[in-house]
């Protein structure tokens, strides 16, 4: 008989009892992150699903010291925590800030920029689910081309979001951030390894993890990991790692999946499969092919 070993339910740094959706990519990433950084860490969290679902007063899912203040300021909080720890001679403690793509790409970007420029010894992790999902699927700077959102809906005169995703990786690199990487929750070992590796680098670290959102993307809970893998295997979401500005790692695309396989699992792209949207599908395929060429993914 096959035997399986499970970790005891409350042995994680982020524990059951939270109210995240079934199939939530963010909560999986959050648990992988908190377990990887371990108990000798302090975490600052932006407002958003990752905060609302985990810390409903008077309960908490976290076993590590954790703070939430506002939507746009986890990077600032982390700076303050790191400064206080330095004064207390406790620089061995990991300081980690987290936020969704709205907090990171949009409302908090000036504070991320400030933290990077100061060179603070902080790991910032962005849970990238490509829209303001906590408020009901509105377009953010991370929303990809043509995605249906409630502030950029598809319709007779619209294919959905008219703009392409902001390139935060290049923005981070322009700040000379010593460790910059992407990951996908579909590849947990890669994500965990990057978290651990990043913590050995002194200075700011930026890690952007791709996390499907079941209600926002209109996907099935069972497909979360499949979509998170397809994003990579189509070439849409390149998994890369830069140390001191040099590309030091990339996840190969083994067998290039057509972009339709990724898009068709998500209702936010449903309108791209109607007659007349062929041009949009072509744009998507070009984007993927360009990524594969730019980073040499095949």
């Amino acid at each position: 008989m096959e035997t399986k070993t499970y970790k005891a339910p409350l042995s994680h740094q982020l524990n059951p009892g939270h109210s995240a959706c079934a199939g939530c990519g963010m909560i999986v990433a959050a648990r992988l992150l908190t377990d990887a950084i371990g108990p000798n860490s302090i975490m600052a969290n932006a407002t958003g699903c990752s905060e609302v679902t985990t810390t409903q007063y008077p309960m908490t899912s976290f076993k590590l010291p954790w703070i939430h203040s506002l939507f746009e300021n986890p990077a600032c909080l982390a700076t303050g925590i790191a400064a206080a720890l330095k004064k207390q001679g406790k620089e061995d403690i990991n300081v980690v800030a987290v936020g969704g793509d709205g907090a990171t790409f949009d409302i908090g970007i000036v504070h991320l920029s400030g933290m990077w420029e100061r060179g603070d010894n902080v790991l910032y992790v962005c849970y990238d689910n490509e829209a303001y999902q906590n408020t009901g699927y509105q377009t953010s700077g991370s929303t990809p081309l043509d995605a249906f959102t409630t502030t950029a809906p598809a319709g007779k005169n619209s294919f959905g979001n008219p703009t392409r995703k902001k390139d935060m990786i290049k923005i981070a690199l322009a700040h000379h951030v010593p460790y910059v990487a992407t990951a996908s929750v579909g590849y947990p070992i890669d994500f965990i390894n990057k978290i651990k590796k990043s913590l050995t680098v002194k200075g700011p670290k930026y890690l952007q993890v791709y996390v499907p959102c079941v209600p926002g993307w209109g996907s099935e809970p069972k497909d979360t990991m499949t979509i998170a893998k397809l994003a990579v295997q189509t070439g849409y979401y390149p998994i890369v790692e830069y140390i001191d500005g040099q590309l030091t790692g990339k996840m190969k695309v083994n067998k290039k999946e057509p972009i339709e396989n990724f898009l068709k699992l998500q209702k936010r792209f449903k309108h791209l499969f109607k007659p007349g949207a062929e041009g949009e599908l072509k744009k998507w395929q070009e984007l993927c092919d360009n990524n594969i060429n730019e980073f040499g993914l095949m």
Partner: protein
Amino acid sequence: MKKILEGSRAIAETVRNIGIDVISAYPITPQTHIVEDLAKLKADGEADYEYIRTESEFAAMSVLIGAAATGARTYTATSSQGLLLMTEVLFNAAGMRLPIVMTDANRAISGPINIWNDQQDAVTMRDAGWIMLYGEDNQETCDLHILAYKIAEKCLIPVVVNLDGFVLTHTVEQVDIAEAKLIKKYLPAFKATEKLDVKNPLTFGAFVTPGQYMEIRQELHDDLRASKKVMAREMLDFKKIFGRKLSLVEYYGAKDADTVVVAMGSVLGTIKEAVDELNKVGKKVGVVKISSLRPFPAEELLKLIGSKKQILVIDKSVSLGEEGILSGEIRRSFYGQSKAKIVGAIMGLGGRDITKEMIKQTIVTAKKTNEQTIFVGK
């Protein structure tokens, strides 16, 4: 140690002597000299705080939330637009019960843009849950900073110490800078009872539903009211150690006055001189200084001047469309309990000079007018 120095430098040296762990800084006129002086003290090896340059005032206050929650004693300074930019963080800092202390060099608000002194900036944070103190001169402002840390850390409520921009920040006068050793006698090292600590992991800033939110807000309200007693006690202690008097309200002038002028900040010096001259010619006039806008010394004021015939409140700020902030506070506090005629005079907006003659003339005008609020520009 008694020194002749600029107000900003006096504040910087006092803050350094208080013993701060983390300072965050972003420049804005007329606060800039304070954060420059703090940077220089650190650069010269005369201070050992962590000094964080931030990308905005919003960030400056947010950095302090992280630092204070980790058990650090914290400080920042701002003014005007900077204070408005940090508004969201100010409410959050108070709601999280973090004993942050901040200086606000009071300045006018845009638009039209104007960098000179009035008190419009800080009154916008009146309802944020902070304790709000006002200094009359540089000595008192420095002393209020020492008091501020004592109260903030006792009550777990953040404190803003206000002083008039330029009028005080850029004025060179004598200040007795309290030595670090003496301050330590009054203000012990800060030990947070709850903090971000890997040995005792806690969750800060949880999501609170309608089931608990009201109680938490009421607790802050009750504690802010109760801080008035703590402050009165600490002011007495302050005098014992430093030999200088601080008070929530202070009366000056003729004991049998029938007319009393009320104000906050540096304009009190001008008013006191006007009152002296009026008293000399037999006019029954007095003046009351208010040092704390929150908590508001309503009972103390009522006891002190509730029986007077005429009260003239001088405001360097205005709730546009209504009246001055201070006159509104006094009217509300005195309602049904005093027969005094209360007139509010809006003066000194955007750096307009307030002279002795203007004060004297306004006392006369206030007696005659049927208006609740008058603007006095000359």
